């Protein structure tokens, strides 16, 4: 397989929509328990996809399976039109360098400062001058809206919101094309969550990212997501913009988008973003 990036991209463009991640007929089990059962999902280039589902329903499992952290029983996952199972270790690494992951609790390395955390993937993969390493780290810190003095702090000295931002800076260290976010706004206050949503939208525009966001935050879903996919019973039961979700007759979706939290948030009256937000 000595194809250049451009030609694989062309092949993808010719085949229907331009999807950077294709999940086909995925089955994942934990022991006897079936978590994902024949799941299909496409993530299109340049979109922000919100992924919703009940707690414990397998949202994070799907993300972990795409990332290769959980094993699947059946099905196919294509990232950049490459089947990750059949790639050699080297080629897999090359794909892994093109995505960045923001874990729910940040997963910053606790024994390193924020700067060292951000530089860690850079130092592993890139060759450049010490000056440029420092400048790139400072740039990423600025991009995610952290103060410069956060660079030399350790994760234990940061607040919850700052940890998320620092972890986002690390996820962006290698200028990835896909960004995975696991509940990015959980644990943030409504103002912080709103800022984080805006940050993700800005970064997505600036860097041309594709964002896969697992979230419970109704404001994020209606505010920044281009498309939403809903998970229930191990399958994607609905896909589309927020209006499609609102119009769906599926009982779980009705409960989710028309429940008291959503109503209090006046989803239906269109003043949604100004009001309450799930804060779990």
């Amino acid at each position: 397989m000595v194809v250049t990036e451009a030609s694989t991209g062309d092949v993808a463009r010719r085949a229907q929509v331009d999807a950077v991640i294709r999940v086909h007929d995925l089955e994942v089990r934990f022991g006897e328990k079936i978590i994902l059962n024949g799941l299909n999902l496409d993530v299109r280039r340049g979109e922000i996809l919100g992924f919703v589902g009940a707690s414990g329903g397998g949202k994070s499992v799907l993300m972990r399976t795409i990332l290769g952290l959980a094993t699947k029983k059946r099905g196919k996952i294509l990232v950049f039109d490459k089947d990750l199972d059949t790639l050699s270790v080297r080629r897999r690494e090359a794909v892994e360098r093109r995505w960045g992951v923001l874990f729910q609790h940040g997963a910053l390395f606790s024994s390193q400062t924020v700067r060292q955390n951000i530089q860690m993937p850079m130092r592993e993969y890139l060759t450049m001058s010490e000056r440029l390493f420092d400048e790139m780290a400072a740039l990423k810190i600025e991009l995610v809206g952290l103060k410069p003095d956060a660079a030399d702090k350790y994760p234990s000295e940061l607040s919850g919101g700052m940890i998320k931002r620092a972890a986002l800076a690390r996820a962006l260290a290698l200028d990835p094309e896909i960004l995975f976010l696991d509940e990015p706004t959980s644990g943030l206050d409504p103002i912080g969550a709103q800022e984080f949503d805006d940050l993700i939208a800005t970064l997505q525009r600036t860097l041309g990212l594709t964002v896969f966001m697992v979230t419970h935050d109704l404001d994020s879903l209606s505010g920044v997501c281009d498309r939403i996919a809903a998970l229930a019973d191990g399958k994607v039961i609905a896909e589309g913009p927020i209006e499609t979700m609102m119009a769906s007759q599926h009982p779980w979706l009705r409960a989710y988008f028309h429940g008291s939290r959503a109503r209090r948030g006046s989803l239906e009256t269109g003043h949604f973003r100004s009001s309450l937000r799930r804060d779990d």
Partner: protein
Amino acid sequence: MRPKRRLTLKPDAVLHRAEGAVVVDLSGDWSAPNAHECEAEAAQVLAGVKERAAVTLNARGVARLDTLGAWVLSRLVHDLGEQGAPATITVTQPAHKILFEEVRYRPLPESHRTRQFLVPDMLADIGKVMVDAMKDLVNGIAFLGSFIAGCINVIMGRSRFRFASLVAQLERVGLRSVPIIVLISMLVGGIIAQQSVFQLQSFGTVSFVADLLGVLVLRELAVLLTSIMIAGRTGSSFTAELGSMKMREEIDALRTMGLDPIEILVVPRIVALLIGLPLLTFISSMAGLFGGGVVAMLYGGVSPEVFLSRLQNAIGINTFVVGMVKAPFMALVIGVIACIEGFAVSGSAESLGARTTASVVKSIFMVIVVDGLFAMFFASIRY
């Protein structure tokens, strides 16, 4: 070449000169995987533009651009300006335009790399170690005080004695340590006996092996072996447990419920050590003597009857008491150090590891110091 290089096009910058103006045609991927080449190309352009003329960086031919490429290029623009050659970038692709706007060169805050001086740093380190040692001593005494206060509260009935917790700790500290303590004590007893027999053979007094073994094992070896083993086995686990509870704010949770972590976590652990360590010391003594006796019989030809009767002559109750009296003190030293280190863990995983190591090293050191103090004490009272 490595395959990851093949996926990208090399960045390139070509200089043209026309009518007093300089045009630099950029092409290829100005992105992170080519970081080194990007820097090199930019440095070449900077070196190549000698004259004070307007420079145009033509970025139309750039295939891929990311924050790194945009940064390097806008830094080049800035550096050219400094050199007296005002530069501009022409961009056509809207995505690249946004990137250049977002990633405009500005002086970023310098990192605070601390400079290293060998001799002053070393002196500072020595001073710090001394101050820390003093602090450790004060902390240790303060902690011992709060442990005793906790015990008094329990004895006076002001707070509940956690019997279940004590039993659980006692099982871990005592019962689960028995096999390993018996094993190493027997082996060490055997080795001592073998060495003694070997040396005594030349004097023809092999049966004195019982004297040597009895005094050595009962007075010193059993309690030292047990304490060192427990410091490594139980002390480290106390530190790690309390440390990870501290990291996850479980200890703060206890405090907010009005519960004293000392009474709930520390008292059962140290009391379990205070009960368990003397028992283990006794078991260790017996195992050491047994191991030594077996070796004396098999290797030295000393029959069990002779061995036992020599043993009876050689040791008195004081030999046994000297060893046993030390055990509770060792327990206190190990328990207090392990708990102090556990509570001193801060947020990072590294600190948990460092504290656990410190706990074991300090306990073993202190066990030996305390043993030395006891040896001096017993020698001066001739016991």
